């Protein structure tokens, strides 16, 4: 082979090898970090994985927020009106967390049926409904009325 060709071949081989390694790494890291979203009804139907993080979302039941004795751990109930699940979270709730409004939490379901959240996501503004939550409410047969969700 002429040197220019040989070199081009090397270049190509190098690029292909690099991309292959990158693709393999990406897929592994990707698989490990996929988070699925479930509504309380999904969880009750046994769809949520055990011993693995996932996202749980719904409406925070009005009047359900409790501070436990240490002052920092809170409990609240997330519902899609079909089913409800108690969520426990240790830390400061985001500014946009409200009773009666949509929330998405991330964590694991404990053996006691309590969802231990390590993150509470409420990044939207006060009138905005997370799309996952709106969808979950619709599936449970209790769609939120239009002017509330917009």
């Amino acid at each position, binding site marked *: 082979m002429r040197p220019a060709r040989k070199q081009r071949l090397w270049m190509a081989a190098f690029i292909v090898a690099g991309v292959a390694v990158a693709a393999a790494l990406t897929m592994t890291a990707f698989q490990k970090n*996929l988070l699925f979203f479930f509504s309380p009804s999904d969880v009750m139907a046994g769809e949520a994985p055990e011993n693995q993080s996932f996202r749980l979302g719904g409406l925070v039941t009005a009047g359900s927020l409790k501070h436990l004795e240490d002052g920092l751990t809170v409990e609240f109930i997330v519902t899609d009106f079909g089913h409800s699940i108690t969520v426990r979270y240790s830390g400061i709730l985001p500014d946009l967390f409200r009773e009666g409004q949509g929330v998405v939490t991330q964590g694991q379901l404990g053996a006691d049926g309590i969802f231990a959240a390590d993150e509470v996501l409420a990044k*939207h*503004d006060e009138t905005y409904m997370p799309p996952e939550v709106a969808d979950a409410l619709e599936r449970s047969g209790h769609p939120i009325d239009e002017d509330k969700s917009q």
Partner: protein
Amino acid sequence: MIPELGHFALILALLVAAVQGVVPLFGAHTRDAAWMAVARPAAYTQLFLVLFAFVALSHAFATQDFSVVYVANNSNSQLPMMYRLSAVWGSHEGSLLLWTLILSLWTAAVARFSKSLPEAFAARVIAVMGLVAVGFMLFMLFTSNPFERHIPALIEGRDLNPLLQDPGLIIHPPMLYIGYVGFAVPFAFAIAALLSGQLDAGWARWSRPWTLVSWSFLTLGIALGSWWAYYELGWGGWWFWDPVENASFMPWLAGTALIHSQAVTEKRGAFRSWTVLLSITAFALSLLGTFLVRSGVLTSVHAFANDPARGLFILVYLLTVIGGALTLYAWRAPRVASPIATTPMSRETFLLINNLFFAVAAATVLLGTLYPLVIDALGLGKISVGPPYFGFMFAILMAPVVALMPAAPYVRWKTDEPGRVAESLWKPLAIAVAIAALLLPLYWSGLSLFLLGGVLGGCWVIVGTLWYVVRRFRTRPPGRFRLLPAGEMGMILAHFGVGIFVLGVTITNTFSVEQDIRLTPGEEYELAGHVFRFETVETLDGPNYTATQGTFLVSRGDDTVAMLYPQKRRYPQGNQMMTEAAIEAGFTRDIYVSLGEPLSDGAWSVRIYYKPFIRWIWLGALFMMAGGFVAAFDKRYRRTRAAAAEHAAPRVVEQGTAPQGA
């Protein structure tokens, strides 16, 4: 009346942009000078009209015209003037108008500073930018008119999202947009080059300064966004791999690859079609970013709009622009393929590796950002990709980049002796290792592969880059002192910034201490060698909010370090709560206190952070930005213009014996 004039100006601007997009293109094709001459006046007229519309909207905000729906939705009679004006781009419609305004500013700048380009080429570039503007103006006029009226007028506005009532948010979007939209210029250059079939080194040289300036603004915009998220969102993090952040980061990654590939195309005439492809990709990712953030498909603070018609329009627009550009590329690019006359040990190889890794990094982020949307669109469930995926991938992808980056400038173009390269590199490498080893006791406690790699990598980049400067000055012929060429200085500044950034990221991520605690006024808490004393809580009135303010005395030993006043604000208009963190910023550490919520017995939940070296992250980004700006003002770009004016022939590729800045 004035909003109607603004609306009318926008319609006129659309017509002008259509003329600007079509007439010069035909002129360039048929070599008709009169038709080509339409480009520049059209660009200036378009700028005037869009600016008029923008001022009209600003006027509506300043005078509190709540009969305009957009104003009523995003302002309030109690909003301070500063935030009334920045509320112009506080939401969907206005930020599109800002986007369009910036596009016409860039177009006018190209019109003004392209006198030395061949007439047909300049006409094509301006025309392509006109076509991009047509799409955005159609989008605005048909789905997102900022001048829409509500009759009768509302008595009071709804208020600007309190998160956006912050000085950081006044400047973050414009800077980011200048960067985003600026990639329209290399895009237009690439399309013009494909249309004309002329893709010589001269083309890359014309396109380069524009790319550098856009990239610098984008760097600044992203850094401002990160800084804002850090102090305003109240979580104390500097990057969350939120889809909205990713949307701005993808064009940055593609842009970084583009800057480096343009260097090869300009200096060596190689990588031509790859540079064209990257120019298209960078702008395509900018458009995609706009689509992701503005169509409401993302669950995020930025996704204000929730209108499927808009999403559909942007999707069609994206497909037209990107699909059209790629089709043109597939048709024309084979003609411009450049021979590679180089050996593996050459600067070209190093820049190729740079491009490979940055392209893969951009693809990685794209996958993690789009995959959940695709799965959702296919009805396969709601998923999201956790930040650890991005973090892990970046640590792996950027490690080789950091390892090779300081070495690249030492290597000659075309071919070099491995022995010579090793000879010039072993000293800085030894110094970097020695520094990292000497500092070991300081970071021993948090030792991990990530930390060791980061500290070593950061030291290596900084020492390697500084050593290069020293060597450059030493090997210059004696005589009067002269600065290095601006292009090379820019490269040095930016690479130095990467070193600072790497150190900042590694140290912050390893040694940050974060604590949520319960405190009653009068109590103390110790964290990272500092004592935080919660003194008092009081109530204050702001211009459009009421605040509960805590007072914290932070001390270390017997010294007072800072008095901090975190606030919890309530904005009554929208009944929204906002946490205003109090931060004592320092070169080697930040102390961060924010108030959670009131608990029983007068106690509060309080969040205390100790963040070493976090400022280095933004400092590094500022160095990168400065590097881009400095490099854009290299004399040779101006010289080329003069030369091109005389004879529009392709330039002969320069080859210096001394290493030159890439």
